[in-house]
């Protein structure tokens, strides 16, 4: 008799999730770099022996893209008979290593029990080192296909040295890789413990049933959608290399319990670092399905495999070698916008208006005179999120594919020779509507004299030209911009920049976009408009221009 039923399925999957979550805890705690530790730029997963995802603990949806390809590539490259207990694979390459951009380094450990390969435990961390960007993936850093860092428990010192040599912050990289190794070791031990307890037969049976369950949940959710075809398109501003208005489009085809996401017609791949490989595209699709169909669908391959995705190789959403992919997360934000837009045609109440649609970030590198050591400081800035059919959009949050936290100001000022001048909500940036879009963020940072050879290694934002769209009559949110100022004068023209030398006293200010509104602004309750005005979230001009039927009567407080 089968040992897997409604109860054991829940109990064992809970056990697996528990292992994945514990791995996430261990990686966060043992990691060395601020980026992994404090910003939790990491993901963890357990795969079955065939490379199917069983369980996933993620903090940032985009990260998944760098995770699930690695096992697949390993199984392509090695026959199962060549995979041994004690092996550890390392990979980051988007084209041969299952990654999605080079900073994400995945470590894969096969798990053996009673001499049998039973699973892979995998984790992935974003190694924020010297960021490199160029017209091809070769310009973006060291490419690591899936290689064995360990074989049968023996470290391949040559590979390890080769990898470390290619990074500027070696100690940090070493510490992070160490943490990743420990995390996988822990996961493997716990998985073996679980198998000991339930028996291998039950475990294998569970794997099958668990994937079926994922598929069942996904298909049930798809079946509930009305059959039909729904299209939507939008553009990315540019690739930072002069290629503008990059179209991204999707056609949803729903038929019974099948769903196809067809991205044909999207812009060809570009020389700027904004190309997505297929795994990044898939991560975005899975994220959207979870948000829009059923967030309780477990993130396993049973679910993933029941979603069909079509995209032409060589396009910005499904890039081919050697397209650069460093900043692919920005593109996945627009991909999510497009998918949400298509679903809005089925039922706008089930989606939200467009959010800031970017991973707004900057990376400042230099030499810290206080310690004499080089530093790299990376920060991503949230923005407004789209309004909902029944309430305003969230102000100042990370949207869609990312959800990393900021670095505390007091922490960053201690660590880097920089001073934060301003960190504020951007007034008037929320798209007007019956429900207002969320406000974007304004953040300014100044270079201090202790910083030498300072470089704005990169800064990027999106939605500079097109507003995040509103829904059902709601208007778009405000666009975003970048200001680099020297002695009070703006010195940049582009909004995506690379390698701009900075001097002490220069300030870099990024303003992210606001979210789109929902519903006709005329229908906005007077009280809400008045409160927004009172709080300085909208100006008098906006009040007059967008909510004309409403008269200003109250005074305005605040400084």
């Amino acid at each position, binding site marked *: 008799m089968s040992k897997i039923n409604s109860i054991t399925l829940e109990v064992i999957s*809970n056990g697996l999730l528990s292992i994945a979550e514990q791995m996430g805890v261990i990686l966060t705690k043992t990691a060395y770099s601020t980026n992994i530790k404090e910003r939790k730029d990491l993901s963890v997963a357990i795969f079955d022996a065939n490379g199917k995802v069983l369980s996933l603990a993620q903090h940032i949806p985009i990260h998944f893209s760098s995770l699930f390809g690695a096992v697949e590539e390993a199984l392509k490259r090695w026959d199962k008979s060549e995979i041994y207990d004690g092996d550890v694979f390392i990979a980051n390459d988007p084209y041969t290593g299952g990654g999605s951009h080079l900073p994400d380094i995945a470590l894969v450990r096969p798990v053996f029990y009673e001499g049998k390969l039973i699973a892979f435990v995998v984790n992935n961390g974003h190694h924020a080192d010297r960021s490199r960007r160029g017209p091809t993936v070769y310009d973006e850093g060291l490419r690591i296909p899936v290689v064995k860092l360990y074989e049968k428990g023996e470290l391949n010192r040559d590979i390890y040295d080769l990898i470390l040599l290619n990074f500027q912050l070696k100690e940090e990289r070493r510490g992070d890789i160490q943490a990743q190794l420990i995390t996988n070791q822990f996961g493997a031990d716990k998985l073996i413990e679980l198998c000991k307890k339930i028996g291998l037969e039950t475990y294998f049976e569970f794997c099958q049933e668990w994937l079926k369950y994922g598929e069942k949940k996904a298909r049930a959710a798809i079946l509930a959608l009305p059959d039909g075809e729904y299209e939507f398109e939008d553009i990315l501003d540019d690739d930072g290399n002069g290629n503008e208005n990059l179209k991204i489009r999707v056609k949803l085809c729903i038929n019974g319990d099948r769903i196809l996401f067809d991205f044909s017609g999207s812009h060809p791949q570009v020389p700027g670092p904004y190309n997505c490989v297929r795994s990044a595209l898939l991560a975005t699709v899975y994220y959207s399905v979870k*948000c829009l169909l059923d967030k309780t669908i477990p993130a396993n391959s049973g679910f993933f495999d029941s979603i069909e995705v079509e995209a032409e190789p060589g396009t910005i959403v499904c890039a081919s070698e050697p397209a650069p992919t460093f900043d692919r997360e920005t593109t996945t934000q627009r991909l999510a916008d497009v998918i949400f837009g298509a679903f809005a045609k089925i039922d706008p109440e089930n989606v939200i208006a467009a959010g800031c649609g970017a991973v707004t970030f900057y990376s400042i590198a230099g030499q810290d005179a206080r310690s004499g050591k080089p530093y790299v400081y990376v920060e991503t800035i949230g923005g407004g999120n789209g309004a909902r059919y029944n309430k305003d959009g*969230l102000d100042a949050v990370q949207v869609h594919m990312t959800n990393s936290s900021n670095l505390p100001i007091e922490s960053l000022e*201690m660590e880097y020779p920089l001073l934060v001048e301003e960190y504020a909500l951007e007034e008037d940036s929320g798209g007007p509507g019956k429900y207002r879009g969320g406000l974007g963020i304004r953040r300014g940072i100044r270079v201090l004299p202790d910083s030498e050879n300072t470089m704005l290694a990169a800064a990027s934002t999106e939605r500079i030209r097109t507003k995040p769209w509103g829904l059902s009559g709601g208007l778009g949110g405000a666009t975003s911009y970048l200001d680099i100022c020297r002695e009070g004068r703006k010195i940049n023209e582009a909004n995506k920049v690379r390698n701009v030398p900075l001097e002490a006293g220069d300030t870099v200010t990024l303003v992210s976009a606001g979210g789109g509104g929902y519903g006709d602004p005329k229908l906005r309750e007077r009280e809400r408009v008045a409160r927004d005005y009172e709080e300085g979230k909208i100006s008098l001009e906006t009040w007059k221009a967008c909510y004309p039927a409403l008269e200003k009567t109250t005074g305005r407080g*605040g400084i």
Partner: protein
Amino acid sequence: MKKIRIGVDVGGTNTDICAIDEATGELMVYKLPSSLKDQSQAVVGGVKKIVEKYGLVYEEVDRFIHGTTVATNAILETRGARTALVTTKGFRDLLEIGRQKRPDLYDLQADKAPVLVPRNLRFELSERMNYRGKILDELKDEELLELVGRLKESHAEAVAVLFLNAYLNPENEARVKAVIEKHLPGIYISTSSEISNQFREFERLCGTVLNSFVGPEVKKYLDNLKHTLEQIGIKKVYINHSNGGLMSIKEASAYPIKTGLSGPAAGVIGVQYLMALIGVKNVITIDVGGTSTDISMIVDGIIESSKDKNISGYPVRIPSIDISTIGAGGGSIAWVDSGGILKVGPQSAGAEPGPACYNRGGEKAAITDARVVLGHLNNKELLNGQLPIDASLSFQAVETLSKKIGMNVEETARGIITVGNSNIVKEIKNVTVEKGYNPTDFALVAFGGAGPLHAAELMEELNMPMAIIPKAPGLLAAYGLLTEDMRRDFVQTNVMDLNHILFSAITDMYWRLEGEAESWFEKERIPEEERELAYYLDMRYKGQNYEIAVNFDKEIASMEQLKERFTETYLRLYAYSSADEIQIVNFGLSAIGHIAKPRTAREDYVGADSSGAVMGSRMVLMEDGSREKYLLYDREQLHCGNVVFGPAIVEQMDSTTIILKNQKAVVDEYFNMVITRTGGDSNE
């Protein structure tokens, strides 16, 4: 004259009162429904009742110790004072931006915790300090005066002040406070450097704002309570705080946020005390109630605390007992999801309508119903007959569910328990791995009304060596209050590289904190012989952003020893260490004013024979569908040395303990039941 110590713990449903005769250890208890609108009604009313019931006189009441949830409830219900914020220019939105994270990755309807200060009540002053606390930009008098005017106009009842980097230099915050106090007397004010001297501005800001937000209400409540108690002759009044210690009413009024997580703290203190008596040093505690389970750890006799907790979505960096809460309790509802899997919780039937068997309109099967079906719980009545049970309703509810998953009623009831336990097990594993421990090295102590029901099963599931059920599992929080000491925690961030300082720099740094502790001792009039200082350092490898607490005791007399201690601790937590440079991040000092412990009732060895406590037996449904006879014991009749062999069920007024096959429970001299396995170490 007798010396009576009274502990009053206010819970969501009941206010529990425990009084103890300090000399004899005689324990007196009284329970009454909480008065939710004004907690003090039930508190004072209950005290009067217990005095009446046991024929006490107020003059005998030596100490009155109170665990209050006024602050916690105000936060949970976002109901507080009209609060203003004063902060560094450019940063008034910090409160709203937070860490930029959205509350849920996939739930588009999820919202952030409400912002407690509206934007127009957040005022900026042009001042700035750098990362060393050096003033870069001075406060300006004219701005201060303008601020006073605006605060007055705003009709704020409370103010919070936070300046960036003020954890190193409180000067500007103190200046603002002085000016506001001078011009706007009566306004409640707290500054970030008074609340916490730790870096990370958003968390410090939240703690400060919350403090001001709940301050006026808590102050009023405590003032009234003090007044009322004084009138009846009770003078020594103490308030329980989140780190499992007591403070004066005055301190609690100034720092009410310190009580924010105190609700479940007293129970853990009670466990710590009881376990110390019997020499059990490593403990995982579970406090299982109707809707949730609280989990905490005691390691080597010391309760694990944390500075990184949150209340209702608001982070607070104030040392607190590290308690994790999950939505799993007796009322947790079982349901079948769209993929056909059996889930339990986090939704709970609570006390109203409660599980189906309460017959108060609840139709869904809760964990309690599964226990009734299986025969774990009395199928006629609970709480000594105060709560009648209709077992047929439990059966119906579980049966409805069983049809959905195509299993029989017994299997389904078992499944509900197994799934419910797996949720608790998952959380216990997360909690222990986070701290670098393994549950197999710990004893499980279960309390709360439902804790003892789960103890034996969880002990097996986690392969723990023993489970211990205290004498009064349902009253442990009120009891714990009676065993607490005065305590205040001082923490100061000051990042130092060990390679760049002399060992004496550390001791120098502590002078200031010791001075603060000293004046606290004086202020609280704690006699010198009762004073104790405990030192710890939060340390990390340079470049990391996560600190670990390292005990800094007298044994450490050199830099080398400190490094060694850090490495040891790090190794235990993370299984590796490094040759990298080590940093101190926070200097921690706990000032403790000991309060003599009341005697604990004990009994000399009576004998192993427990047959005198047998009340009968009950048939319990087993996994294979068969029924097995469990002997039924009356806890009141169990004595020191009595051995109860499983399978058995032990009933007492407010709790039921299950002892499984291959387990036995031995009653110790303090009436704890210690459950262990009868054969070998493990059941596997």
